[in-house]
């Protein structure tokens, strides 16, 4: 049977969008803002408890702010730190949307990064316009392949991706050590594991060095913004994104709708890995200039927090990544100016996550910021 209908007045009325509700606003704005505030307050209490006096606490928070956004250099540092966090966070967010809890960004990032370095110093003769994109591509591809292992294991055998990506992280550390000692990779004349440098025509160019050579902001920031747009497009505008989201929300209904779960799992993991690989590549090509053991510095794990904080939404991930970048840049300043340990930043970041993850807790602390119970949220 075939059905054609027409768009009459009654159906046209259904095309009106409701204004974003109060609940959505509370969820997306009020909770994160309060979470940051509570985390900062608790951070201050932690400092008090460790015998830091009040003026120092005041100074350290001023330093945090100044170090994050107080100068051109601060902003440059904040953005530089945000780039890999956002890239990897986007990949993780995409996985979350598809119902995959990928812990493996760290390993995918390392593998992608080293691949970019190797392609870079192996083909020094190529022009910049060719070599730099080629290095990024290598990073993305290798990251994707490395993540696909976990995806394939899940799809083919049901092995849970949390376990397999953790294992793959551990393997990646050792694998990197091994690669860095290969004669073709190791910087000649060095005994410690360190790679040859990335040639200049493979590097992501610095953007602000004409103002001050110390400004580290590099072209990866465009990559980051493009990735936000692409992931948004992929998730919300394409058939594939629809399949990802459907599988993540209700795998049963997705199966009934003819969406193949195995395909979705492998593909979502691969794309997440590609983004983590890009994060690694942009880090070595734009900031570090070479690969060393553990050059990822935990970015792959921080990215999990960024993806969660960003509610697995590309724009949210961008904002969360910028916040974490700011905390990192500001944290360094805080250490310099006030002599407060950088670990405190870690504590504050962790507290923010805790409060974001527990919106009920935030609601309980700030009852006046929210509508009373009975909102649309608690419908069975």
């Amino acid at each position: 049977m075939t059905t054609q209908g027409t768009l009459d007045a009654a159906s046209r009325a259904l095309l009106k969008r409701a204004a974003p509700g109060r609940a959505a606003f509370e969820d997306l704005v009020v909770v994160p803002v309060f979470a940051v505030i509570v985390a900062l307050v608790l951070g201050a209490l932690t400092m008090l408890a460790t015998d830091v006096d009040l003026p120092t606490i005041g100074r350290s928070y001023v330093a945090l702010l100044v170090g994050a956004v107080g100068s051109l250099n601060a902003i440059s540092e904040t953005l530089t730190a945000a780039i890999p966090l956002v890239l990897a966070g986007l990949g993780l967010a995409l996985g979350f949307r598809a119902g995959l809890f990928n812990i493996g960004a760290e390993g995918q990032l390392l593998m992608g990064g080293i691949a970019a370095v190797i392609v870079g110093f192996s083909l020094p003769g190529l022009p910049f316009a060719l070599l730099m994109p080629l290095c990024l591509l290598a990073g993305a591809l290798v990251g994707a392949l490395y993540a696909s292992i976990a995806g394939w294991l899940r799809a083919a055998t049901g092995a849970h991706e949390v376990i397999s990506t953790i294992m793959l992280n551990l393997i990646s550390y050792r694998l990197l050590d091994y690669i860095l000692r290969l004669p073709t990779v190791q910087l000649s004349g060095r005994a410690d594991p360190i790679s040859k440098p990335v040639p200049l025509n493979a590097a992501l160019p610095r953007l602000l060095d004409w103002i001050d050579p110390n400004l580290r902001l590099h072209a990866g920031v465009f990559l980051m913004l493009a990735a936000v747009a692409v992931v948004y497009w992929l998730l919300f505008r394409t058939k594939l994104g629809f399949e990802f989201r459907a599988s993540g929300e209700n795998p049963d209904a997705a199966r009934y709708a003819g969406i193949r779960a195995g395909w979705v799992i492998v593909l979502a993991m691969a794309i997440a890995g590609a983004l983590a690989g890009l994060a690694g590549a942009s880090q070595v090509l734009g900031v570090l200039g070479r690969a060393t053991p553990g050059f990822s510095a935990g970015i792959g794990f921080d990215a999990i927090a960024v993806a969660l904080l960003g509610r697995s939404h590309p724009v949210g991930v961008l904002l969360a990544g910028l916040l974490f970048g700011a905390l990192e840049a500001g944290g360094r300043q805080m250490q310099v100016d006030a002599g407060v340990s950088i670990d405190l930043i870690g504590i504050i970041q962790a507290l923010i996550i805790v409060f974001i993850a527990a919106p009920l807790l935030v609601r309980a602390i700030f009852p006046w910021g929210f509508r009373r119970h009975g909102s649309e949220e608690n419908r069975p």
Partner: protein
Amino acid sequence: MQVELKGITKRFGPVVANRDVTLSVKGGEVLGLLGENGAGKSTLMNVLCGLYAQDEGEIIIDGDPVSFGGPGAAIAAGIGMVHQHFMLVPVFTVAENVVLGVEPTGRLDRLDLASARAKVTEIGEKYGLHVDPDEVIENLPVGVQQRVEIIKVLFRSADLVILDEPTAVLTPQEVEEFFGIVRSLRDAGKAIIFITHKLGEITEIADRISVLRAGEIVGEADPKTARLEDLAQMMVGRPVSFDVDKPPLEAGAPILAVQDLVVLREDDAVAVDRVSLTVRSGEIVGLAGVQGNGQTELIEALTGLRMPAAGTITYQGADITRATVRVRHRMGIAHIPEDRQRSGMIGAFTVAENMVLDTYYDDRFSRGPQIIWPKVHEQAAISATEFDVRTPSVFLRAGHLSGGNQQKLVVARELSRETKLVIAAQPTRGLDVGSVEYIHRRLVEARQEGDGVLIMSSELDEILALSDRILVMFKGRIVAEFDATAAAFDKSAIGLAMAGGAGAEVAA
């Protein structure tokens, strides 16, 4: 106990789900609550059990106005609710589910399951709610799960028991047992509010009837004297026909032919045992049988969700035994799944997204890798209007629709695309009489346009009304076939075959 609702109004944004509703119920009586899909019955009950806060009005218990800060307060006040969609933990046992949230504890906060078990048995004996406290929920049929929900409510010593469409998921036999339970609760002095769309049930069990329409009380009726036609008219505001108008059968070539199909369950037990059947163009075939006799597995095999162990499925001359779900969809097989919430829709998606859940890849809705959302929204609006899915907008989360409107959404999606074969499992579960009438008409229309239609329903009356031919399944086999060409079906013979009795194999 006397509970009164006075002037209750509840809004969801621009939608007014309840408007100035006044209602009362007292101990020892059953209040039947009728109303079309989306009338606001579930919402009103959610206000009463403390899940929603009303915008206006008050709740009065035994003369005192009360204010619930949440479900906990309502439970403490003696109000318990069995929801339209169950809320049990599938991997927990009956006893564990019953005590969840109010666990009896011994010394050092140790969970005292023994006393919970004893209490479950005690409640069971008192009200005829027999269930094994140690059985795991997911192994229980829906009818028994429902008893667990009721025990849960009684365990919290409720004096008012709210039952939201409890019979929608029950087989006719289970409904009879269920009514026995309701009567014993009433005789024990409990107040009961009972929601259903089946008018025959409400006149049988209720002492009083109130009717909601568009959020307002539109009238009361006396179950002893009320005519079903009047109740239906009161609910939907227009006369409703209970008979299906069906032109005589003009069956064409076979569309679906199944040969010696064997389907196994997860535990390798045989669910479908060498079944052969044919569905012809222009014919409605009804699949009758007590739930759990292999109908579900048969339909899963026909739709590609479960690979058969042996046998063949031929569709329009092509062998589709091993074809994927997607391929079958593309070939024109529509499937209305049995359980809308679990497998028919995605609650977190919008109405529009759900409308294209299995057609988004179609050329109508996509270009290259992209979905053309404006087209999707337009089609969703058209289908929603056509099938009377009550929603303020196609951008509403489908999970926020009323139960019946969720069902209409699923049916609308499946019947709004090009089909040659419609496989419908419980197509009208949870629908009001008006919507049932409409969906039945659409299924007959599909038949008139030359589709083959296969209907599975636990409601024998529905199968009787729609089918040209009825197949009865028992223990995985088709044990009887009844033809409607000559006269009306022999209801008692069908019932006998469903129970595996003598009518099997010989009847015709």
